[in-house]
């Protein structure tokens, strides 16, 4: 499976990219629940690009490139040309047990890490490239950490 799609980095185009991804993934034997997990990781990464990658007043693109390798792993590169930023360096929230103590931030990176089997970041020229790797296609919803 090979597929690329690119849109302006605005929330209104998020669903277009997710829909594209869903139709690709259905052909690759991923369970419905696993597709939902992967979509979530994608949405979190793409929303982050829409909200933070480009300085206010400017707009760039967000892109995903999907492929499968010889080992049947699904690899998705999420690319933007915004300011250098590695989401993996963001700190995860403190999982406090109390509503009043719990923070609003950091959920995105926590959810991404829990849904993917492997993850990398690199800066390539003027691009941020976040790579998700999915091995598990089955009904295991939560990837082992």
């Amino acid at each position, binding site marked *: 499976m090979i597929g690329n799609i690119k849109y302006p980095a605005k929330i209104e185009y998020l669903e277009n990219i997710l829909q594209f991804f869903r139709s690709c993934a259905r052909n690759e034997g991923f369970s419905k629940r696993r597709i939902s997990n992967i979509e*979530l990781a994608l*949405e979190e990464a793409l*929303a982050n690009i829409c909200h933070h990658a480009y300085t206010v007043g400017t707009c760039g693109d967000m892109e995903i490139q999907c492929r499968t390798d010889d080992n049947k792993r699904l690899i998705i590169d999420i690319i933007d040309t915004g300011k250098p930023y590695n989401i993996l360096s963001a700190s995860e929230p403190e999982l406090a047990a109390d*509503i*009043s103590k719990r923070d609003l931030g950091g959920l995105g990176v926590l959810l991404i890490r829990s849904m993917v089997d492997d993850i990398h970041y690199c800066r390539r020229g003027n691009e941020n490239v976040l790579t998700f790797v999915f091995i598990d296609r089955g009904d295991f919803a939560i990837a082992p950490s």
Partner: protein
Amino acid sequence: MEINTRREKDIVIISVKGRMGEVSAPEFEKRMNELMNDGETKFLIDLKGLEYISSAGLRGLLTVAKILKERNGWIFLSGLKGAVKDVFEVSQFISIFRTFETVESALSEM
């Protein structure tokens, strides 16, 4: 995303169907704000029909829960399952919200 509201005594029961992601989460928050401005303080959110929730949806729920706590109100959840339950477990939101299997089991405890 579809939001349906009904009342059972002084509890507002909101059933949410579809997806609560970046685009639709603000709709839910808006509806909650309207109801809270009307003075409602007790909420049961039925998520049985919810297929998907992202951090935007979780943040919306947490924001509302914090406001209600300050007003001595509460927000409980029911019908958590599948991918939505996964997200609640990973984020540990399952420990900070009181959850029930069904609306009926929630109401029978109140």
